[in-house]
């Protein structure tokens, strides 16, 4: 089973740092630019990457990430290209924890077992499927069994309204990290983020993989406040995608702005 996320959390914990995990969409706006973006994120200090696997109908995402998905698919990139890009990043950064967020139909269309086999082959550590709740994970299409067979971490989302039973179940399944949803709704920076400290405490108590807080975290100030909820790190997606959207015409500015953003966010996760 992939250990890169676990190793990274141990290393950060010794340094009293939280993890900063930027989220961007694979092949947005195209394969080559996306490769440069990913390299910039890592070289500016990202502790891990969570990458969006483009889908035509991202129903858990707000307008910013919807547009990113659309740009990526409009470039003509396909499932094989997304895997190839991940493989290139893996070769460049052998210890970097990498996860993807992928809607279930993309997994099912490739064949669930084949999807996880491909994930393992390119060196992917973890897969998060936002539209498969834990009670559907192993009903008929056994996502969990395929993931384990190919030694890929299954990451689950824990919502702030999770019942005790749900928190326990999620804690028992999720590997690598737990995506702690800060609030209801969809991704985006238009609404502030929530601080579900009780749920975060319970996840720890039930031995869940370390929590990363996401949804609505966009500034270094947000990051500092978010780190006080007791999570192991934070994820920022729409804020990164907004920079990409704004600087589509100017690749140099795009990369330097992203780099400055990652540095500032990373600094904010260093606990004093």
């Amino acid at each position, binding site marked *: 089973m992939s250990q890169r996320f676990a190793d990274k959390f141990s290393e950060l914990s010794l340094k009293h740092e939280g993890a900063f995990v930027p989220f961007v969409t694979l092949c947005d706006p195209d394969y080559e630019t996306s490769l440069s973006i990913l390299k910039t994120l890592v070289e500016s200090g990202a502790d891990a990457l969570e990458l969006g696997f483009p*889908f*035509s*109908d*991202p*129903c*858990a995402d*707000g*307008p910013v990430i*919807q547009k990113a998905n*659309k740009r990526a*698919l409009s470039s003509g990139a*396909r*499932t094989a290209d997304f895997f190839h890009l991940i493989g290139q990043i893996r070769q460049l950064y052998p210890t970097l924890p990498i996860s993807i967020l992928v*809607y*279930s*139909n*993309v*997994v*099912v*269309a*490739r064949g669930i077992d084949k999807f996880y086999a491909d994930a393992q082959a390119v060196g992917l550590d973890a897969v998060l499927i*936002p*539209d*498969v*709740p*834990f*009670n*559907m994970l192993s*009903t*008929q*299409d056994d996502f969990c069994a395929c993931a384990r067979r190919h030694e890929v971490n299954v990451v*689950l*989302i*824990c*919502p*702030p*309204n*999770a*019942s005790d039973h*749900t928190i326990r179940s*999620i804690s028992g399944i999720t590997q690598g990290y737990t995506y702690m*949803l800060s609030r*209801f*709704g*969809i991704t985006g920076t238009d609404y502030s983020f929530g601080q579900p400290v009780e749920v975060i405490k319970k996840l720890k108590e039930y031995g869940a993989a370390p929590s990363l807080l996401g949804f609505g975290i966009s500034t270094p100030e947000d990051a500092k406040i978010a780190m006080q909820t007791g999570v192991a790190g934070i994820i920022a997606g729409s804020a990164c995608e907004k920079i990409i959207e704004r600087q589509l015409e100017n690749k140099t500015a795009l990369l330097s702005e992203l780099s400055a953003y990652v540095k500032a966010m990373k600094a904010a996760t260093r606990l004093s």
Partner: protein
Amino acid sequence: MTQLNPFFGKYGGQYVPEVLVPALDELEQAFIDARNDPEFKQELSCLLNKYAGRPTPLTLCRNLTRGTKTKIYLKREDLLHGGAHKTNQVIGQALLAKRMGKTRIIAETGAGQHGVATALICALLGFKCTIYMGAVDTERQKPNVFRMRLMGAEVKPVTVGASTLKEACNEALRDYAANFEHTHYMIGTAAGPHPFPTIVREFQKIIGEEIHQQILEENGRLPDACIACVGGGSNAIGMFTDFLETKVPLYGVEPAGLGINTPKNGATLRNGQQGIFFGAYSYNLQTEDGQINESYSISAGLDFPSVGPQHAYLKDSGRVSYVSATDDEALEAFVLLSQQEGIIPAMESSHALAYAIRMMREHPDKEQVLVVNLSGRGDKDIFNVSNILEQRGVSTADGFHLDRLKLSY
């Protein structure tokens, strides 16, 4: 785990973000409780009968079948308050929303019929109402947009993607994920995540129950076919449910658009692949990679790249035959029923009628009794159809030239 089985064979399920599961559990519980509550049942049937106008008649066509031995009966859901079968199930869902203490209802709509039904029940029962509708559909279904606004609903045009029903569904799901604590998502068809396909079927099956009784009274025996159009599939499942245990042949008619073998169609069961979309495992129009394609139909209400999961199951089991009718065949049926019976059918329902007409023409000497679910009335379509018929040279100053429409059979 859910209390009711979320699957139909391998289809269905509850493929939604974890955050929505508590809301769907709450809905399932409310539905289970309501089913056994005499007060709920009484309020539901009171609204169905005295507000919506049930039972709807079963009308025998007088002229359309002349010269053949076919009898065509029309189940007149077009006469239901609101103008379509949609009203049946919004009453049920609105009463569930009331039970759950929700104050706001959201819905997606394609042709606008479900939006209108949602708006009217929200006006009656005092819910705040937001309707998501693709921007292309708000254009081609203008009369319904006004109806919804008139009854107090806020209509939000959705401009992403192809701006039709698929995008409206995504947008409604997003709203639901943010606001489910006080908002009920009134899904308009027998699709989406569990428990929606089951709830919508249970509130629509009254159509088939009435047909069953009426046809025995009128005709003395069961029909030789029940025919309904299939977009998401709520009017079809409503018609079929009471006949599933009989031997009556059942036909679901999908939109073949410009042709069943062209890329411009919406025949999901015939041309789709299995996969997960809109919360359920079913058939979808999609690429090899699982990206959902745009569907196409002249009829906004059938323009949907997925289908309710029970239809997927009934296709595989062979109990229902899923066939199709093209835009042109539906247009011909639309004009013929208007001319010969004085009934303007919805473009959606015109697909079902077109298939009955085809069965009649293919076997003029066969004594056969066909029941068509006339799921809605066509007033909402007249402007759009008028434009199309004029452009095609079918409608001219000297009348209608139906020979200029192309039939696929």
